[in-house]
């Protein structure tokens, strides 16, 4: 990945065209609704959020491998911080600092070349990192000679690191693969489309609640509709990964369709348990970073290992 490769990559340019087209289309629809006298202030705020986020994401991918990895790592850091603030783990600066350090280490591991193999990104250490980080987190109460309340702090830190940090940061590893543009852009695009599909189908046809104790907004119709859309998308965007066989497309559809919504539900029950509505207010009209990237957390690592299983390190 580099600027010159991005300029020559048909995949990158096609995605830019698709996204710009969709943004213009959505802008026109919003404009027409506004002229018809409808109240569009809420969707307009969400739309403005997209207008900021999309150039940032495309810009990072355009700049290349390092910028993409740094961008993904920053998202992980901000996401973890939101989780830590929401749960109150943030009051403990030792533990929060330890997880920050661990996330910084993961970013480095993604950036450096493998010391034994001739490829960028230290695969073995990245995959083994939870062993070391969980060990370090568990040792902190011993270092500080503390017992009261430590199980809660340690557990929150481990979930924070493994789920919001390590699992999410698999996304950064795609920047090290030869098909970086296709994988990254497809995932980012498909996961958001999946979210939007679930919302739209739920609004249009939703009656039965999917998990009423977790989220009042998610319906069975939305769930099924989103899976249907996500199963179709890989076929339409096959050019993103021309080396995929049909079975891989089916698997991709399932991973994004199911994994995306599971990630959403995980954040939902975390928020409900804590008793908050959004994880933060980082992006106007979208809530916190976690409210936006939650669907990626299951998808990124599972898609990553699916690809690696069928197509190896390339």
């Amino acid at each position, binding site marked *: 990945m580099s600027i010159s490769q991005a300029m020559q990559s048909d995949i990158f340019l096609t995605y830019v065209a698709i996204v710009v087209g969709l943004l213009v289309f959505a802008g026109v629809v919003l404009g027409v609704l506004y002229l018809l006298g409808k109240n569009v202030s809420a969707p307009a705020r969400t739309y403005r959020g997209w207008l900021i986020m999309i150039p940032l994401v495309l810009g990072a991918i355009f700049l290349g491998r390092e910028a993409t990895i740094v961008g993904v790592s920053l998202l992980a850091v901000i996401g973890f911080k939101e989780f830590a603030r929401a*749960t109150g783990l943030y009051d403990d*600066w030792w533990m929060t600092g330890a997880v920050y350090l661990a996330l910084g280490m993961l970013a480095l591991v993604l950036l450096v070349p493998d010391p034994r193999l001739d490829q960028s990104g230290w695969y073995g250490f990245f995959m083994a990192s939870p062993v070391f980080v969980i060990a370090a987190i568990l040792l902190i109460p011993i270092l500080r000679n503390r017992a009261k309340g430590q199980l*809660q702090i340690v557990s929150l830190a481990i979930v924070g690191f493994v789920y919001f940090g390590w699992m999410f940061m698999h996304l950064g590893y795609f920047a090290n693969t030869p098909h970086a543009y296709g994988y990254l852009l497809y995932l980012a695009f498909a996961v958001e489309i999946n979210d939007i599909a679930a919302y739209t189908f739920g609004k249009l046809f939703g009656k039965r609640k999917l998990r009423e104790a977790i989220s009042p907004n998610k319906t069975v119709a939305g769930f099924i509709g989103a899976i249907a859309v996500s199963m179709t998308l890989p076929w339409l965007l096959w050019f993103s990964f021309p080396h995929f066989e049909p079975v891989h497309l089916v698997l991709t559809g399932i991973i994004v369709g199911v994994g995306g919504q599971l990630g959403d539900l995980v954040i939902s029950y975390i928020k409900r348990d804590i008793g908050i509505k959004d994880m933060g*207010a980082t992006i106007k009209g979208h809530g916190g970073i976690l409210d936006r990237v939650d669907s990626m957390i299951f998808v990124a690592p599972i898609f990553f290992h699916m690809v690696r299983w069928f197509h190896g390190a390339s």
Partner: protein
Amino acid sequence: MEEWEYHPPPDIDASMAETLRNFPREPKMLPYAIRSIASLLLRGWMRTYHRMQIDGRENLPDEGSYILVCNHTSHLDTLCMMCAVPLARIHRTFPAAAADYFFSSLPRSAVSAILINALPFDREAKGAESLAICAKLLENEGNILIIFPEGTRTTSGKMARFRSGVGRLVAGTDLAVLPCYLDGGLRAWPKGKLFPRPYKLHLRIGPARTYGHLEKEGRSVRTICGDLEERVASLGRQGK
């Protein structure tokens, strides 16, 4: 199994601008780190560029909350007082700053909240509310409040009458108030100039005063303000 307790911050849904303006501020790692580094740099800058001299540091109490009051000729007053308190207490030192000036825009709020650790003080409408926030702050151990009772920077060099806020804060309490006088601020950075000029600054910190013996009433407020005004002015005369 006993249920866990979570402690999400009350301002979790606040935007960045609101977070910066809210008070009391939640301790955050990045602002603390930036503030610590900035304070170190500031001390170096004041020592070299302004040849800052501080007398009476030994008057600062080692423990407990206290108030520093000072004459107000320029923004250097605040910066100089921030250099006078021990570095370890910099995150618990709060200069009261006019909300209508220091928190009027996002960049200004960011500088005021992160670098200066300013307490947004409403000079006009909600003065009493702001005073209540100050009182609450001082109830906790180990906080330092910096107040400029004149309320605004002087342009003539003549000290204005002290406004009643500080008197209302300390009447009938055993809070220590330390009168301070900064010499040279007016010459170094007069109101309206963009950058400070390299003139010498000399801060004098007087011995602590307490007003626990006075009742909480209008008359003692005037007495306290008059007393502090006189103490600050006499510190100013020392140099002449």
